[in-house]
């Protein structure tokens, strides 16, 4: 009995996760080898769905867009998050500034998408400002212009994620001991030298977590794009996640959708290997 008891503690969590997450994940993998619309009996088709996918321009478009998103969300919210954490550290009003930058965390993807859709509209706030600087003929409905629409949505996403990254970096900065910074200051190092030689290297493990989380989150991006452009115009701004939803729940081609989800999962899993390494390495250091 004593041998079984620890497993009883695990049981509720394992049942929920096993039944609603792990099992469906495996099912999706097997559906990707079938032709199925969700109603008729499914038919095994081997690798046909993957063959279709890899010859489909819409898939490749969404694949490149996904890469664009990953790079964009590393360049913008991660860098700006680090910058904000460094800048606001011990600044008067630090707390107020941080709460404001963190605030978009409270908002849903749908709300954020709506807020920014109206910013980018032809008669929206962005164009109203731009009209003061450039000729009105150059103004566009930005969400319909490829590839500016993806860039515009990455900015939206950055507005949401910068605060989260800033908080994570701030947490890491609090754990940096005073002595090396004090020592460097006594040696006559300037602020930027201390930043480059002491602070940034000591933030390395925090940075690793933030970067890998940013990669995984941007691979999984869905709601902002779905509300702002629906992946359009002509599926030009879709990512893999959006493309999957499009194939599955608009075209009701579950085989294509599942194959798409499988490809996305493989990519996410590759990134997760780094993630798991990073968080467990961090734990060994014991910070």
């Amino acid at each position: 009995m004593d041998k079984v008891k620890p497993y009883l503690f695990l049981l509720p969590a394992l049942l929920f996760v096993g039944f609603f997450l792990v099992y469906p994940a495996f099912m999706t993998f097997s559906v990707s080898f079938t032709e199925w619309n969700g109603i008729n009996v499914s038919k095994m088709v081997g690798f046909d769905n993957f063959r279709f996918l890899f010859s489909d321009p819409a898939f490749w478009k969404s694949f490149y867009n996904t890469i664009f998103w990953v790079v964009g969300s590393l360049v913008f919210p991660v860098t700006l998050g680090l910058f904000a954490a460094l800048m606001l550290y011990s600044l008067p009003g630090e707390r107020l500034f941080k709460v404001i930058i963190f605030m978009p965390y409270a908002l849903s993807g749908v709300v954020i998408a709506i807020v920014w859709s109206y910013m980018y509209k032809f008669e929206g706030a962005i164009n109203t400002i731009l009209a003061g600087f450039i000729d009105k003929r150059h103004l566009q409905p930005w969400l319909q212009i490829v590839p500016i629409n993806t860039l515009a949505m990455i900015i939206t996403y950055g507005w949401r994620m910068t605060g989260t990254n800033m908080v994570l970096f701030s947490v890491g900065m609090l754990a940096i001991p005073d002595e090396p910074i004090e020592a460097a200051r006594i040696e006559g190092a300037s602020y930027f030298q201390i930043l480059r030689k002491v602070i940034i290297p000591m933030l390395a493990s925090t940075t690793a977590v933030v970067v890998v989380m940013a990669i995984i989150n941007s691979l999984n991006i869905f709601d902002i794009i779905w509300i702002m452009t629906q992946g359009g115009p002509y599926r030009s701004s879709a990512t893999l996640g959006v493309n999957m939803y499009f194939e599955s729940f608009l075209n009701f081609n579950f085989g294509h959708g599942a194959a798409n989800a499988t490809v996305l999962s493989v990519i996410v899993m590759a990134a997760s290997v780094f993630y798991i390494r990073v968080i467990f390495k961090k734990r060994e250091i014991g910070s």
Partner: protein
Amino acid sequence: MQKNTKLGPAKIALLLLAIVLVAAWIFPLWNVAVSSTKSLPGYANSKPWAFARGENPIVQFGKNVQRAIQGSQRGNGIRPALFNSLLYSVTGSVIAIACAALAAFSLACLRVRGRFFFFLLLFSGTVFPLQVYLIPLFTLFQKTNLYDTKIALILVYIAICIPFCVFLLRNWFLDVPLEIYEATKIDGASDLQAFRLIFVPLSKAPFAALFLFQFTWIWNDYIFGTTFARSGTTRSIMALLAAQQNMYSSMGTPAILASAIFVSIPTLFLVIFFRNTFFKGMALQFSGSSK
């Protein structure tokens, strides 16, 4: 890292930069707030960030909120969705935290064979894209007549919240000295008693943080809410907002924006008033010594 609060010229320059950054962050929210206080013609004839001339913003805001609550057509009103999302967010996060706490206790303190495997199995739920769950769950719910029911959504929300809770609580429990657990065993307490009387009271901080995280996550979820529910009686708040936005020609921009503000009030309230719990919760991701 020491805090240096002396105000020099460099600090003042940074302060100005910070004000610019924060202003840029507020700007979109300001536009939305102001736009939701205009009538439809007032919105069309004024700059996005300025109030409309000749209108009472408070009265117009009230009208827009009223319109948002009623919806533009039958079954499009906010009220049922508000209660649904409240139900999903509270039950989903509370049950998930309870299940996760039991599991994390077992993984961290009881010497379970294969504990790392079980941990990875549970943890895998935090990394997979949500899209990977949609098709099988959608067809499963249709087959079992659970599609478009509250039960289906509650079950899915519990499941999706467990992995992160397990991760965080395992970290937390690993930091509790093993001697405390051993002492309770010597005193003759069962594992369940040790869990209930020692570990649960010790874990108020991560429980509070996790509740805030998961409540916010479920409240803000869109993809599950829109895939597994369709009718007005089960729809979650964000799925409803997306539907209102889709039909914006009949609802009108200021009313949609009022709706977007209205549905964000609960989570905004949590983030602003419990900001320190959120921040501390994020720090917990990094805690835990190796064992």
